[in-house]
């Protein structure tokens, strides 16, 4: 990747979109992209697949793992879609740009890799039935029975220059709709996305590390999100956590950093019933910074949800879990303690 191409792609995938404001309530923006609407019911398995009429979309898997060697590990597998036009044409006329990210965190090291591709020619894409998301030889493929949800059983693979992983994800609970029935508000001005998760995976498989293969088991979390207007113009980045409590509860929380902080979250019971947490309910307080690539990144956090009696501090498995790719961000596994304890994943962008 040349520097300029990288910059363009970074713009494509992460920068706030200047034209992404709602267009007279017609459900599309000025360039014809669809805009999420409150109250649209998500339909499966169709919504597991791609939504080319929206600008951006992702299939985002993370897993906190423990090796047979007793060590902690973390794995990320993500497929991003970014549309230059709101349709899915065949062949090279396709305007859907795909980007794959893979990360593998150990206590000593953090590996990352990326892939780019154009839709329409078979190099990358997502099929909804049977479900398969892929770019090159990286893939997330469903092998669930036909009466099950496609995400109930996934087989996931990615490979970088110096690492690879092959993992089986098995869902132990239902899909969870984030926000208002899957409509997730992202700013006080009303930017929003469709957002649902599968937070109940158990994971088993093999990591290929420079020192040799390691068998691992653990827990996984899949986020699905699509939108045409992910951030408000003043929002520079976000801090996001997925938490898996020792008692079986799950929690998702994020803050978007703009002129004002906007927060949201979901408290999830062990049987999968979500409680949305409104703006301001969850508070993120940085506790410790780590110097990475000339930036100060808050790798240790205190997270409070007063109404739920939650006050925890997080500690990363490896504070240097920096995704040193065309689009740069921090993504890695953590442990937390305080009022509650468990493991989770932290993502921080815009530092």
């Amino acid at each position, binding site marked *: *990747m*040349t*520097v*300029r*191409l*990288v*910059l*363009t792609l970074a713009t*494509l995938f992460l920068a706030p979109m200047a034209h992404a404001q709602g267009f007279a309530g017609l459900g599309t923006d000025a360039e014809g992209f669809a805009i999420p609407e409150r109250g649209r019911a998500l339909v499966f398995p169709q919504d597991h697949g791609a939504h080319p009429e929206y600008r951006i979309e992702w299939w985002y898997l993370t897993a906190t793992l423990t090796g047979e060697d007793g060590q902690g590990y973390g794995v990320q597998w993500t497929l991003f879609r970014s549309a*230059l036009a709101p349709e899915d044409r065949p*062949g*090279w*006329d396709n*305007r859907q*740009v795909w980007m794959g990210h893979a990360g593998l965190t150990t206590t000593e090291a953090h590996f990352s890799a990326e892939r*780019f*591709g*154009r839709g329409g*020619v*078979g*190099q990358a894409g997502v099929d909804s039935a049977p479900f398969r998301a*892929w770019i*090159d*030889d990286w893939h997330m493929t469903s092998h669930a029975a036909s009466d099950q949800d496609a995400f109930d059983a996934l087989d996931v693979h990615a*490979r*970088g*220059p110096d690492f*690879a992983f092959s993992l089986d994800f098995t869902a132990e609970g239902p899909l969870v709709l984030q926000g208002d029935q899957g409509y997730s508000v992202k700013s006080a001005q009303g930017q929003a996305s469709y957002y649902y998760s599968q937070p109940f995976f158990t994971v088993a498989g093999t990591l290929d590390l420079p020192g040799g293969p390691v068998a691992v088991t653990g827990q996984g979390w899949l986020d699905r999100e699509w939108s045409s207007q992910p951030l408000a113009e003043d929002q520079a980045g976000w801090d996001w956590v997925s938490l898996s409590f020792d008692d079986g509860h799950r929690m998702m929380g994020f803050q978007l950093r703009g002129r004002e902080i906007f927060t949201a979250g979901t408290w999830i019971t062990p049987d999968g019933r979500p409680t949305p947490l409104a703006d301001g309910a969850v508070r993120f307080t940085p506790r410790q910074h780590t110097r990475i690539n000339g930036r100060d990144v808050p790798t240790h956090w205190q997270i409070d949800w007063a109404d739920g009696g939650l006050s925890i501090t997080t500690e990363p498995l490896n504070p240097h879990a920096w995704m040193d790719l065309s689009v740069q961000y921090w993504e890695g596994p953590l442990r937390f303690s305080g009022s509650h304890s468990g493991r989770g994943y932290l993502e921080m962008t815009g530092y």
Partner: protein
Amino acid sequence: MTRTALGALMSHWRRNPWQLAMLLAGLALATALWSGVQALNAEARAAYATAEGLLTEGGAATLEHPAGQMAEAQFAELRRAGWLVSPVIEGRATLGAARVTLLGIEPLTAPPGAGPALAAPDLQAFFAGQAFAHPQTLREIGATEMRLTASEAVPVGTVLMDIGQAQRRLGLAGQITRLTLAPDQPADLNPLATLAPDLRLIAPGEGATLDGLTQSFHLNLTAFGLLAFAVGLFIVHSAVGLAFEQRRAMFRTLRALGLPLRQLTACLAGEMLIFALIAGALGLALGYLLAASLLPDVALTLRGLYGAPVPGALQFDPLWALAGLGMTLAGTALAGAQALWRLWQMPILAPARPRAWAHASARGQRLQAGGALVLAGLAVVLALAGSTLATGFALLAAALLAAALAVPLVLSLGLRVSEAQARTPVAQWFWADSRQNLPRLSLALMALMLALAANIGVGTMVASFRATFITWLDLRLVAELNVTPASQSQAEELRAFLAPRADAVLPMLRVDATLAGQPGQVYAMTDHATFRDNWPLIAPVADVWDRLAAGEGVLVNEQLYRRAGLTPGRATLDLPGIGPMPVLGAYPDYGNPLAQAVLTEARFTAAYPDSPIRQFAIRSATPDALSAALQDEFGLSSSQIVDQAQAKALSLAIFERTFVITRALNVLTLSVAALALFAALVTLSGMRLAQLAPLWALGLTARQLAALELARALVLGAATLVLALPVGLMLAQVLLAVINVQAFGWRLPLQIFPGDWARLGLWAMLAVALAAALPAWRLWRQGPAQLLRVFAHDR
């Protein structure tokens, strides 16, 4: 003291402005020719680097199909197997008023390179059809509906665009030309040989790289630049040497006045450094102008011969200027070293006798004779043992130097013989005096001989080549029309349309292949009288055409036949996808840098079924009507239909251009040599007054003396010309039988063109007469007063 010394030293140049002019001109011309050639080479090499860096930085391995194309599905298949490959499509198309190479890339998967960098800032626009081309290409294309953006990063003649857009314009939907491999691939992938057994892996730098193909062309240019530089240095050396001799008395005086030897030497070295800098700067300016005026022809030659994209406009590179100046300084040092050394060795009160030089020359002559013999021996050894282009040029250099060193010896011998024949006192004096002055003129005469020999040799080579080439071209271009289909589907339609209307429709099918380890191409040949009657063959086996038609073997081009030593009837050639095939004969294939093999159409299409038809050669009794019908029926553009006359004109034009540079350098070298002679004669004339004055005193008129001086120059020039003739023929023979075979792969018969020699002789004598005219004229006009003064100043 230094200042006074410098002033005294410089006064010599004030009194001898001609000598100074000669020195500067020689140095400037040497620099100009050398650096001009270097600028041409550098510009061309930079263009090759641009062309190769367009797709990938520092070169990448590629996967290619022998048929020249593959289905684009292979791209996704290999990606999904983990291989980091990126598709490229390449083809020729007519855009606006120009025929260009369309290069389609996929910027998201492409390895880092200039092309993907151009696409990156606005992917949306690039996907939608934005294309990039060199400003020169844009001018050639003219008005078009395309969105073309100028970029110097794209080689001349290429238009860079998105792969999908390029496929559409080339009529090759779903097809790609090759896959580039990213430099770092993941470990533990399934091997390519299993995943894509039909694709060939080509390592970076392998295959037909422009650098490799054009190497001989640039070597030829460099050799000419060096020759010109050497001739220029002869001038410098003689000017410096003479100035040194003339200032011996001054040196002695300065030393006697107390100027330390070290300081005197430093002054002289400083003087030369200043001259070198002035002349170097002048030479660089001249060299730049020379290169800029020759570049369009060089660019056309390189494009015509090798398809190398070289722009016609010259860039200025400061590094080139520094290198050129360095060469001037080194040349000056070389030319002046002997003079400085002698100064260093000179006893403080050594008599300032000009005769000393002549005595020293006698010793020098023996040394020269020895040198000539050694070099001649070396040349013979190289001729017998050498087999590379470098040894070919070394052979040339050794032979030319040997001949040059022999010039004064042979001339001296000739003068001695003439002297013995002479009956009258004036004639005897004429010959003896010529011999006496020969050492001072010998360097200039050597330079003249070199330039004349180079002229005769190169002229003979070019003329021989031309005669052979035209005969060959007449035989080769027998098809009345050549038609290039725009796409594969059009090719089929054209074939169906033409079959009932033409006497023969001969498709041109070709695949790229490595032949005997060399980059090359395999062609299909339809069995037809067109080929049987007209293709001259070298060493064919019996019934060669019948055996070829039966698919029993292949024909190879002369280049391949010579380089790989494929003797027809004995050798076999390994063809990709077919295996070893007997070689049945070789055919001349002038102007093609690549190896080539020809086999029958049936064998070809069986082995390479997907190969597209690139051109039809059409035999017809009514080519004009057919051409018109094709334009009406298929809307073919004029660039897609080439008739016989056009094709011949095009080939001849390419041929003529190939030697434009050679001729230009030839003329310049001869001019430099004439200048060298002029310089020597002018400086000599001043010193010779003392020798002429007694003759004047004995009754010869100044006019007679001037005529004798002119005659001497002409006699020596003519003798040099006579000597240059065999040397030139030897040079031509080496060029034809050694250099051409090594550089291009073909051997041509030597043909003699006495008319050309006569013309060259006239020019040479005119140049000599002009060079001698000024000194002779001066002697005649200001004769008596000057001659009288000789006695007044007699030492």
